[in-house]
């Protein structure tokens, strides 16, 4: 079920999620799983590869309805999603890709968004003319242009080089700080989680369940490199403890 809830608040209660395996048996992907995010809160889901993070996101954004449990989306259910792949329409320009997802966006808002993400000179380019880094920025621009109540990012910076990923992360921080939005980020990069999130959920191996809910009190803009390293060390200890 996907009822619309209090503005900006996300409630997830999953009892069970499994797939039918090719061999005929059932493959359990998610176990008992509950969490809630307040309006404007940024949470990161950190867990080993294949633990069911992407399945969880697909359930939350309404792409997978075959599960036991309940997901309550923010009030107007306006979603901004950044998939692992940019998923741009190759036959539409950068600007058209964004406008098709966000037809209500004003010219001023789009220009500001493109300027923040360094896309101003690429508005008329086709996705095939962009590097992967630029294509990921367009995917980010599309998600923000919607002015979502819930922003969902599925390993948005995977397969980028470290410098470019760091730059895109700081652009994301700037966008989230400028317009607070309830955000759920999936990553297995602990540094990324600590740099962006207010809360980090540590997930177990498949079938995934929440091992720990770690709040980060210090505002993300004020976090120093030493503090990020300290939080990271705490998380890594918890991961080692399993």
């Amino acid at each position, binding site marked *: 079920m996907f009822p619309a809830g209090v503005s900006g608040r996300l409630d997830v209660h999953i009892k069970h999620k499994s797939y039918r395996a090719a061999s005929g048996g059932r493959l359990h992907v998610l176990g008992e799983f509950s969490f809630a995010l307040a309006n404007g809160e940024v949470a990161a889901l950190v867990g080993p590869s294949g633990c069911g993070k992407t399945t969880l996101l697909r359930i939350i954004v309404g*792409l997978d309805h075959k599960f036991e449990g309940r997901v309550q989306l923010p009030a107007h259910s306006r*979603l901004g999603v950044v998939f692992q792949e940019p998923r741009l*329409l190759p*036959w539409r320009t950068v600007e058209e890709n964004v406008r098709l*997802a966000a037809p209500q966006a004003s010219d001023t808002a789009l220009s500001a968004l493109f300027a923040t993400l360094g896309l101003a000179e690429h508005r008329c380019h086709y996705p095939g003319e962009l590097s992967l880094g630029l294509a990921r920025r367009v995917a980010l621009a599309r998600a923000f242009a919607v002015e979502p109540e819930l922003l969902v990012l599925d390993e948005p910076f995977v397969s980028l080089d470290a410098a470019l990923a760091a730059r895109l992360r700081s652009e994301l921080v700037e966008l989230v700080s400028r317009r607070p939005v309830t955000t759920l980020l999936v990553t297995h990069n602990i540094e990324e989680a600590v740099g962006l999130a207010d809360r980090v959920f540590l997930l177990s191996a498949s079938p995934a369940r929440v091992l720990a809910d770690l709040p980060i009190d210090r505002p993300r803009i004020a976090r120093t490199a030493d503090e990020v390293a300290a939080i990271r060390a705490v998380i890594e200890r918890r991961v080692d403890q399993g």
Partner: protein
Amino acid sequence: MNLMLRAASIALLLAAWFAGSHIVGARLLPEPQAVGLAIVQEARSGALAFNLGVTLARVAASFTIAMALGTVIGLAMGRVVFLDRLADPWLVVLLNLPALVIIVLAYVWAGLTESAAIAAVALSKLPITIVTVREGARALDRMLDEMATVFRMGMWIRLRHVVLPQLAPYLAAAARSGLSLVWKIVLIVELLGRPNGVGFEIGVAFQLFDVTRILAYALAFVVVMLAIETFLVQPLERNVSRWRVRPA
């Protein structure tokens, strides 16, 4: 270079035609200039333009009907498994039914009318369009579909900006093969049951054993179809694939 090769190829064809005419005789294969003269005479009398126009109108009508219906049915069958299973046996029957049978049955059931002729041609072309578009619909990118779902894109926007551009190569293939198939079937339809058109004129010329006139009409119509392919189909195809990055 490309143009030179084409010119050389056409010159070779004309030379072979000329030589063939001398070997088998002008009655069986008239010389190119005799056929050219016949085209000019038919054009001067106004018969060529009239018959070409009538045949082209039939081609346009049956082609449009077959493409429109074939796209809708092919898309539905490619997307909905239930519909695909339900309609597939019909499709196999239609695919294997000779065009001649469809034409004869259409004339028997509906009379020697314009609508029977156009319906028969459209029905002959329809299954190939359905099969081609169905393949395109099966190959639609699921990831783009999901993107359109999460961003709540409306039906029309999805169809126009997500689905149809993916189907464009399949539609182009269906249009290309369809155009060449449709005009050949239209000629048979005209030969069997219409009082005008290129097919009718070829039928009359056949009864009079006038090979010059047969070749004159056939050649004139091939030129018209080549012009449509060069000045309409190819530019349209270039336009819809302008987003593809080409090597420098």
